[in-house]
């Protein structure tokens, strides 16, 4: 049996009386793209922050790449890549400087760092822009740079939180090509999105609503089960209405 990249059991996070993530038991096998769907406020980001060990759960437990997320967050962080919709880059640093900074932070050095930097510049199509200050880049390029920064350390698991929102469809298309090039190398990718066309790109889907995990399966499974063969939009609406 293949080991699981992510396993959670009744993972819960409350903020005062508000339960952002409510007893989520999620299993993500290694390899492929897992899509985490749900409307704004469904609890996707809170779940991801717990998986990264940044936010402590108030209930339940979970393992990421075999490490307990409550006790072994440091080990998780060296093996996991993360990118959010904010493309957390230093606008006043050049493309290259951003890569070098994040590379050093992840412990890369010397020739390995230089090699990895050049490799990713080429991979993301940013070689010509490498000396530009990041603030001057357009949204699509910035997204690719943030992506490159998130995978410098060759993470086994990549968490992309709404990483595709705010860029044009052409850039989004290119971005998915990059995601597939990673899964081809064996990286597990978890993406959160509310674009249903993107959900179709995923190998597996998990749907969240009001903090709860309401459905999991392949896109085809979900369509058959909840939309009578209709689109994923229909699945989404059906599941959202239930609660």
């Amino acid at each position, binding site marked *: 049996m293949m080991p699981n990249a992510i396993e959670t059991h009744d993972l819960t996070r409350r903020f005062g009386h508000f339960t952002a993530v409510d007893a989520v038991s999620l299993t993500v096998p290694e390899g492929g793209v897992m899509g985490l769907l749900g409307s704004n406020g469904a609890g996707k980001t809170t779940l991801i922050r717990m998986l*990264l060990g940044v936010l402590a759960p108030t209930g339940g437990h979970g393992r990421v790449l075999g490490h307990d997320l409550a006790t072994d967050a440091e080990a998780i962080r060296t093996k996991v890549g993360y990118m959010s919709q904010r*493309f*957390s880059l230093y606008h006043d*640093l050049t493309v290259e*400087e951003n890569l070098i900074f994040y590379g*050093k*932070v*992840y412990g890369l050095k010397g020739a390995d760092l230089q090699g990895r930097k050049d490799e990713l510049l080429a991979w993301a199509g940013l070689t010509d822009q490498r000396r530009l200050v990041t603030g001057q880049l357009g949204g699509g390029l910035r997204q690719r740079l943030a992506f490159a*920064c998130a995978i410098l350390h060759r993470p086994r698991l990549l968490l992309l939180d709404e990483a595709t929102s705010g860029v044009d469809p052409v850039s989004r298309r290119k971005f998915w090509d990059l995601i597939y090039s990673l899964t081809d190398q064996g990286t597990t990718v978890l993406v959160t999105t509310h674009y249903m066309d993107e959900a179709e790109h995923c190998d597996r889907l998990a749907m969240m609503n009001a903090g709860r995990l309401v459905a999991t399966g392949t896109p085809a499974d979900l369509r058959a089960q909840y939309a009578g063969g209709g689109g994923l939009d229909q699945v989404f609406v059906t599941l959202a209405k239930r609660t």
Partner: protein
Amino acid sequence: MLQRLLALAQKEFIQIRRDRRTLAMMIALPMLWLLMFGYAFSFDVQEVRVAVVDESGSEIGGMVADAFRTYDRFIQTDLADRSEAGIRDAMYRDDLQMGIIIPQGYAEAGNSEQIRVLVDGSDLFAAQTGARLLQSAIEPVQGKIKADLEARTKADIQERLTKELSARRDALLAQVPAPMKAQVEQQFAGATALSPDALGVSAPAAPQLIPTVTVLYNPELKSANVMIPGLLGLVVMFITTMMTAMGVVREREYGTMEQLVVTPIRPLELMLGKLLPYLLVGALDFFIVYIAGRYLFDLTFAGNLPLFLGLSLLLVFTTLGLGLLISTVAQNQQQAMQMAIFVVIPQILLSGLIFPLSSLPAVIRYVAYALPFTHYVPIARGMFIKGQGLDLLWPQVVILAGYAVAVVTLATLRFRKRIA
């Protein structure tokens, strides 16, 4: 650990270098303050604009007026109307800082009129200096006035003596029989030879009114000598508090903090990676002001320099910690800047650097003593000017060290909690 820390510091320096405004503030601000405190904020007024109105018509009055007019630190100002009203008008127009009126009948026998002086209180330091200089201005004529007084006293005694003698002679003449009158007249004629000089009369010796003042430690009483040591701390405090606060909040504003916390960087590394660059920036500013003070204002440093650097570090730890604390509260860079100013300005105003602590009302003085910078100013001044050591400054050092430990601990705890 070291690599991550250096990566953070290096990144911070690139950002500082790219940000022209910050760079300008870092370099220009200390220079600007240095010039302000060194030259412009000079509380020693060299010359006072003075007008003298002499209404006395007497010789002494004229002498006193001339003394005021020729004194080299009084700049003579012409009045359109040479009267008290004219002085008040000129002062209202800021043409005049001090007016001196020598009243009619001044220094005449039996006249108690005093010299009247009007000073412009809105021009505080000029007014104080002017009033203080009156004595020195009048000093040269003091001797002449004394001689004049003596002459007048003698004339007065002579007159009274003569009067008294003639009165007694007349009384005696009226009493004695006619044959003896010639004898009486003869006797009194001899007595008229009595004079104040013969009696050894002279004017009483005036007490020495101008004391001999010897100024220790700052013989020229230059404000630069007193201001610049404190200014060193002020510049470092301002820059480190403000830049640390802004530097951390900027990460949050850009969203890069969110990214940093998911990297293997530990909170302590993140904190040190932020503080180290601004510590160096603070040190750079410290040396700019120090060098400028030494070579531009001819300041001498009387104390133990390594000790002074060490004690200054206590202040810097405190202010870096304050900056960090602000960053855990402020939502954006603008708020961080406002809070930094809110934290720094009272410390500048109440520290005793500009206004002496003894001039503050008691309640405000307690507030002043609760601020860390208040305890740095005596250290800086004492070591710069007097060469004081720990034997005298230890109470300030203990308090400052206490602040450094407390603020850094609190900031570390808050910072770790805030980024988690």
